[in-house]
C-alpha cells in the first residue's frame, strides 16, 4: 500500500496545498443528437448535420433521444453512482450566434445521475478516491469560426444539439498530476462502457478545471475555473500555472477573485475570461417543451445486466487470474486496447512474462516512437511467439531482446529469426564445458585470483562474475546462463 503523496507548492511564505475539482464534458456516443434525429458524425461539411430543431426554426420542438439517456444511465452505473428515476431538463438562457435556440437545454436542478465515486491510480502507485457529485445530460452548442474572415464570424451548427454528459467531481483532487490521472481513469471507464469515444483531439472529451489553493489544513480557498482544457498535459499545465498564480497573489497580500479563465496552450498561461460580477444570469427554468425524464427501474436492471467489464474489474481479474502485480495490472487494464493485446499475448503462455514484455519492451518502444498500440509493428501473436521461445528456454531473455528488435523491421516470426540467425540457446553441457575450459586456459591470472579470494573465505568471489561475462560473450550470448554457472563453479572447485 503506497501512501498518497502530499503535493505541496513551496511559496515565499511557506507551503501551499492545491485543491481541485473537475467538470468533464463527454460527448455521448450515439448516432443521433440529444433532441433531434440529426446525425452526429464528425468531419461532415459545415452545417450539413443540422435538423430544423437544431437550427431552432419557428415551432420546432425537442424530443428526447432515449439512447442518449441509456448511455447516461450506463455511465452512471460505471461511476458507481445513484441513478435518478426522475430528472428534469431546464433551459439555460443566453444569446450567442452558435446557440440557435437562445438557450441550452441542460439539467440544472435534477440531474439524471446523482452521487458516485471512482478510485484512481496515481503514477506514484497510490490509489485515491474521487467523489462524483453528479452527471447530467445537456446539448452542445455549435461552433463559431472567427478566423475565416477578418470582418465576420461563421457558424457551423453540426455540433449544435449533440448530446454531452457533464460529469462533475467533488473537490477531492490534490495535485495537477492527480487531475490528469482522474481524467485518464474517467476516460478509460467511458471507453470501456462505449458511452464516449474519449477522443480529446476532436473535443469529444474536455474538462473545466476548478483550482484553489490553501495552507494545508485550512478552509477551502476561492476557486477559479479554467474552461475547456482538452489534453492531459494541458490539464496539468493549466492547473499548475493557475495554482502558482493564485499563490503569488495571496502571498502578495491580495485575494482571489472567483472567475472563469481560459488556458493558452502556447504560452502555458491562464487569463481571465469573465469575473463573477460579469457572470451571465442564465435564467434557468424547467423546459416547458419537455416532460420530466422518467426512467424505468427495469431499464436500469437491463443495463446493469449488460455491463461490460470495467477497468477496475479487469485489473482485479489480471491480478487474480494472471498473478500480475497490481501496478502491471493497472497499466494494462486502464486501456481497452492494451488489455486486449495483453490477453492475446498471455493466452496459453506465461502471463507474468507476457505482462513484462508488453508493458516494458513493447509499450516502452511504442511510447518512445509515439506509435499507437493499434499500429504496433509487432502483433500480439508474434510477441506471443517470442515469449513462448523464452519460456521453453529456446532463447534467453537477453537474446529475446535482440530478436524483438529484429521483429520490428520484419514480418518474420520470432522462431524464424532465431533459426535464421542461429540464436538458439546452447544447453549442451559438453559444448558449454568446452567453452569454459578454453576461457579458463586463456586467463590463468584470473583463475588464480578467484582461488585466492575463495581461500580468503569469500563464498562468491567477485572475479567469478567476470568469467561468466567472458563465457557468455564467447558463446555469442547463446549459452544457457544457469548451465554456465553450474559448470564454471564445478571447474573452479567452488
Amino acid at each position, binding site marked *: 500500500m503506497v501512501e498518497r503523496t502530499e503535493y505541496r507548492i513551496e511559496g515565499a511564505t511557506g507551503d501551499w496545498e492545491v485543491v481541485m475539482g473537475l467538470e468533464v464534458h463527454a460527448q455521448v456516443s450515439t448516432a443521433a443528437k440529444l433532441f433531434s434525429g440529426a446525425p452526429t458524425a464528425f468531419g461532415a461539411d459545415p452545417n450539413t448535420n443540422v435538423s*430544423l430543431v437544431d*437550427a*431552432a*426554426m*419557428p*415551432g*420546432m*420542438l*425537442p*424530443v*428526447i433521444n432515449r439512447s442518449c439517456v441509456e448511455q447516461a444511465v450506463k455511465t452512471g452505473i460505471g461511476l458507481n453512482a445513484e441513478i435518478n428515476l426522475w430528472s428534469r431538463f431546464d*433551459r439555460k*438562457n443566453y*444569446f450567442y*450566434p452558435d446557440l*440557435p*435556440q*437562445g*438557450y441550452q437545454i441542460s439539467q440544472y436542478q435534477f440531474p439524471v445521475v446523482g452521487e458516485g465515486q471512482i478510485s484512481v491510480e496515481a503514477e506514484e502507485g497510490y490509489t485515491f478516491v474521487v467523489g462524483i457529485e453528479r452527471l447530467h445530460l445537456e446539448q452542445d452548442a455549435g461552433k463559431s469560426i472567427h478566423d475565416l474572415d477578418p470582418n465576420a*464570424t461563421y*457558424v457551423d451548427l453540426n455540433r449544435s444539439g449533440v448530446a454531452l454528459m457533464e460529469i462533475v467531481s467533488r473537490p477531492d483532487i490534490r495535485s495537477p498530476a492527480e487531475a490528469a490521472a482522474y481524467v485518464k481513469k474517467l476516460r478509460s471507464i467511458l471507453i470501456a462502457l462505449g458511452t464516449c469515444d474519449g477522443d480529446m483531439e476532436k473535443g469529444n472529451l474536455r474538462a473545466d478545471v476548478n483550482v484553489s489553493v490553501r495552507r494545508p489544513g485550512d478552509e477551502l480557498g476561492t476557486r477559479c475555473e479554467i474552461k475547456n482544457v482538452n489534453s492531459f498535459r494541458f490539464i496539468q499545465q493549466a492547473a499548475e500555472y493557475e495554482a502558482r498564480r493564485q499563490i503569488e497573489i495571496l502571498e502578495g497580500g491580495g485575494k482571489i477573485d472567483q472567475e472563469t479563465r481560459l488556458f493558452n496552450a502556447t504560452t502555458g498561461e491562464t487569463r481571465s475570461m469573465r469575473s463573477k460580477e460579469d457572470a451571465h*444570469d442564465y*435564467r*434557468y*427554468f424547467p423546459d*416547458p*417543451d*419537455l*416532460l420530466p425524464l422518467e426512467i424505468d427501474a427495469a431499464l436500469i436492471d437491463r443495463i446493469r445486466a449488460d455491463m461490460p467489464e470495467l477497468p477496475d474489474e479487469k485489473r482485479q481479474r489480471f491480478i487474480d487470474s494472471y498473478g500480475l502485480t497490481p501496478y502491471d495490472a493497472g497499466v494494462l487494464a486502464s486501456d481497452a486496447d492494451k488489455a486486449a493485446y495483453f490477453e492475446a499475448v498471455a493466452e496459453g503462455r506465461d502471463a507474468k512474462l507476457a505482462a513484462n514484455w508488453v508493458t516494458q519492451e513493447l509499450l516502452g518502444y511504442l511510447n518512445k516512437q509515439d506509435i499507437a498500440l493499434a499500429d504496433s509493428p509487432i502483433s500480439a501473436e508474434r510477441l506471443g511467439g517470442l515469449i513462448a521461445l523464452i519460456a521453453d528456454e529456446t532463447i534467453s531473455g537477453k537474446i529475446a531482446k535482440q530478436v524483438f528488435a529484429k521483429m520490428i523491421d520484419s514480418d518474420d516470426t520470432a522462431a524464424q529469426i532465431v533459426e535464421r540467425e542461429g540464436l538458439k540457446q546452447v544447453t549442451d553441457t559438453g559444448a558449454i564445458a568446452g567453452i569454459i575450459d578454453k576461457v579458463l586456459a586463456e586467463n590463468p591470472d584470473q583463475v588464480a585470483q578467484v582461488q585466492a579470494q575463495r581461500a580468503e573465505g569469500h563464498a562468491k568471489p567477485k572475479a567469478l562474475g567476470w568469467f561468466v561475462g567472458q563465457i557468455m560473450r564467447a558463446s555469442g550470448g547463446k549459452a544457457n546462463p544457469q548451465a554456465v554457472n553450474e559448470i564454471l563453479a564445478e571447474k573452479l572447485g567452488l
Partner: protein
Amino acid sequence: MTNLTQLTLADALDGLRKRQFSSREITQAHLDEIEKANPNLNAYVAVTAEKALAMADAADAQLGKTKGKVGKLEGAPLGVKDLFCTEGVRTTACSNILGEFTPPYESTVTQNLWDQGAVMLGKLNMDEFAMGSANETSRFGPPTNPWRREGANTKLTSGGSSGGSATAVAADLCLAATASDTGGSIRQPAAFTGTVGIKPTYGRASRYGMVAFASSLDQAGPLAKSVMDAAIMLEVMCSADEKDSTSLQMPVPNWTKSVGKGVKGMKIGVPKEYRMDGMPDSIEKLWQKGIDWLKAQGAEIVDVSLPHTKYALPAYYIVAPAEASSNLARYDGMRYGARQTGSGSLTDTYEQTRGQGFGAEVQRRLLIGTYVLSAGYYDAYYLRAQKVRTKILQDFESAFGAVDALLTPATPSAAFAYGEKSDDPVAMYLNDVFTVTANLAGLPGMSVPAGLDENGLPLGLQVISKALDEDACFKVGAALEEAAGFTARPERWW
C-alpha cells in the same frame, strides 16, 4: 347556390359529398368574398388563391371517384392563423421580426387538415406572437369586427389573439379556421364575434410547427360557426404526435357524436368567484339565462367555489411572459427572418434586430419574462406562480369531484373599440380573466354565442370541463346553442 359562403361547415361538407356543388365553386365563392371584404375587415394577411384552387380541384377529383377515401374535410375551404407554419407559404406570427419567412415544413395541425382534404384559403391576422386581446399588435394592422354597435359605425375589435380567425369565420370568409389559445385567444374572439371556439385539453393538439408563445399554455383549436362545426374541426386538428413531447399519446375521441346528446342528468357547476365587481348587467343576465336553459334541459345546477381564481391572472402574466422570453430568444437575426445589423457588431445586431423586429407589447412581455426569471427573483415570481398554478388545478379537481362541467361568462365585456384599452395594458390583460384558468390547469374550454348585449353585440358563455372530457363541453355547448337559438348575423356593412 348563391350563398355558399354562408353554409356551416357541416352543411358544406354534406353538399360537397352529395355533389350539390364542387369544392372549386365553394372555394371560389370564398375567394370572391375575401377579395371584397378583406380591404375593410383585414382578416387575411395572405391569400393563397392559386393554392386554394389547386387543392379544391384535387378534392373534387377525390369526391368524384366512386371508390376511394374521402377525407373528413374533403373540399372545405378553411383559414389558417398565421401562427401555424405552412410549407411554402409565408408565416410571420404577424411580427416584423419574421420578415418574409417561408417555412420549408408544415405544422402538424395544418397537415392533419390537408390530409383530410381541406383547402387552404390563406393566413389569418393575429396579435404579434399571439400576445394581445385586440389584435392591435399585428404588424399588418388589426382586423375589424364585422359586428358594430347598433346605430354606430365605430370600428370594434374582434378580440385577440385569434382576431383574424374570428373575423373570417363571422364574416363568412372561410367555413372555419384554425386558432390558438394561450390565455383565451380562441374563446375571447369567439365571444366577441358570435362564433364558437374551443381549446381542447393541453396536449390534444400538437404544437409542432406552431410558432411558440408560452409552451406550457399554448394549445390549438378551431373557431367555427357552430358547435358541430367546432367538433368536426377539432377531431381533425388533434392527434397524438411524437414530434411534440407534450402531445398526449392517446386516440382522439369522436366528439361529433356528443353534439346534441343533451345535458339531462349532468351536473353543472357555477363558480361564485367568476361573479366580478363591475361586470356589466348584460353579462350577469346572460349567465343566469344560461343557467336556466341548462336547468330546463334537465341539468342539475350546483354552486361551486374556485377560491384561487383571483390569483390566476397574475400567475398567468408571470408564467406566460417567462416562457415567451425564452421561446422568442431564437429570433436573433442570425438564421432567418428580418435582420438589422446596425453598426455591424454582434450586440448591435441583436439590439437592432430585436428592437425593430418586435412590437411594443411583445417587448413589454419579454422584459417582464426576463425579469421574473432573473436570479434573485425566480422564487418570488416564477416559482410562486407555478405554485398558484397547482392550487388552481386543485380547485378545479375538487370542483369536478361534484360536477361534470362549469358554466361561466366567456369575457367580462362585449367587443370594445380600438384604442379603448390599448393605453392601459392591465385593463387589456383583464380580458382574459375568465379564460386563463383553463390554460393554467390545461383543461378544455369552449365559448358559445348565447345572446346580444344592449348594443346588439354578441356575448359568449364559457363551458369548462375535466381534462380529456371535451365531450362535456360539446354536450353543454350544443345545449346552450340550441336553447339560445343564436341566429343573429352581423349586418353586412363591408
